């Protein structure tokens, strides 16, 4: 039996991630934990997150879990970042007046802005909340069985921009084009919520639970 750890650093609702994982792979041992030893001993690790970056980074660091994320990222073990999870993996976020993050991926998280418009000049709401199309820009084991331009559920006010285009796995458009999925070796990270994205999202989680950490 394989196991997956969902890193619990006290921010937001981890139950939906855990329930979705149990649903897509019955028998999988799902460990929602803030215990370093538990996280490091799991076969796969998920870094979820909702809320503001300062609180998320603050709690992660306070619990010593920032080091654990670095270790997992370097270990070759599959690591999946979700929502604020992907922003935490960047070098820097503009949120809360600017905040340093983990730096697993070179690049930043930027605010969408107060004057976001669509093609017809209509003002767009921020947060970007709801179902939007994701363009898969590479073949990756985590996209397997998911149709190109499938819709996923998003809720975020900051968008990531990778410094190296070769690390981008998926893009989206909302007033501007932005990165929504990044990959590097054994790490995959997404801005949307796969656990709330119905069949496309569940397929991605299923792919993750069967992934060996190799990019192709």
């Amino acid at each position: 039996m394989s196991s997956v750890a969902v890193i619990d650093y006290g921010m937001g609702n981890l139950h939906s991630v855990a329930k979705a994982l149990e649903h897509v792979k019955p028998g999988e041992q799902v460990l929602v934990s803030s215990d370093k030893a538990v996280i490091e001993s799991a076969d796969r690790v998920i870094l979820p997150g909702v809320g503001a970056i300062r609180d998320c980074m603050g709690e992660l660091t306070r619990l010593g879990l920032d080091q654990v994320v670095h270790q997992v990222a370097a270990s070759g073990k599959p690591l999946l970042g979700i929502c604020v999870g992907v922003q935490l993996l960047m070098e820097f976020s503009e949120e809360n007046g600017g905040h340093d993050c983990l730096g697993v991926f070179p690049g930043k998280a930027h605010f969408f802005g107060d004057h976001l418009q669509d093609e017809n000049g209509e003002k767009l709401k921020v947060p970007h909340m709801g179902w939007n199309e994701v363009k898969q820009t590479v073949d990756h084991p985590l996209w397997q069985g998911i149709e190109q331009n499938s819709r996923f559920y998003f809720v975020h006010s900051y968008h990531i921009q990778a410094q190296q285009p070769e690390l981008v796995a998926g893009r989206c458009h909302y007033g501007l084009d932005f990165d929504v999925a990044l990959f590097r070796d054994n790490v995959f990270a997404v801005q949307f919520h796969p656990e709330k994205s119905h069949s496309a999202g569940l397929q991605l989680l299923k792919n993750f639970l069967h992934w060996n950490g190799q990019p192709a």
Partner: protein
Amino acid sequence: MALAKRIIPCLDVDNGRVVKGVQFLDIRDAGDPVEVAKRYNEQGADEITFLDITASHQDRDTMVHVVEAIAGQVFIPLTVGGGIRTCDDIRRMLNAGADKVSINTAAVTNPDFVREASERFGAQCIVVAIDSKKVSQPGEPDRWEVFTHGGRRATGLDVIEWAKKLVALGAGEILLTSMDADGTKNGFDLGVTRAVSEAVPVPVIASGGVGNLDHLVDGVLQGKADAVLAASIFHFNEYSIPEAKQYMAEKGIEMRL
């Protein structure tokens, strides 16, 4: 490529059963919430909202179990409202599997609660419900007032100003129900929907009055709503969710089909 407008079926839950009141009076039984939620999930609903309309604490425990049962089987966003008054209430619902909570009366009686909740749990999970009634006379400029207690108690608050204040306090989304329209099947109050949607930077969910698919279309195209909420047209199988989505897409609205 664009963000889709959302269709949100709403389940009014009383003592563990889905019911539907007409202007908050008559109650018709519409089934087991878990079964109803699963059906909407399979049909492609973009989100599901539950409003706990029971009064007693005992029944609130029932609601927690209902949310738990649904969250284990339905993988789209779930919002729970009704009787959310403290951060503990929010924590309980989030732990049960809700993604967002909808705060109504407590926002009026204690606006700081919205700020506290948003700071604690993040604006993305704080929906604030506004029950609106038109109070201007014919011939006067439109004016809408916030009501509580199922439309029985006036608050003196102007709906547009109140919506702006809620966003400043940290509301991530506004669920706007027209008490004049609710249960009538005559369509949303498009005037207040548009006025609120244009006044606030966060998404607005239009609610109250849907009787046919054109009402959903009007809510988005004329009311500028980001999402449309309806109950009875779906519960009693007058229309299915795919039928509604297809119709809205034919009218040029971006939908998740």
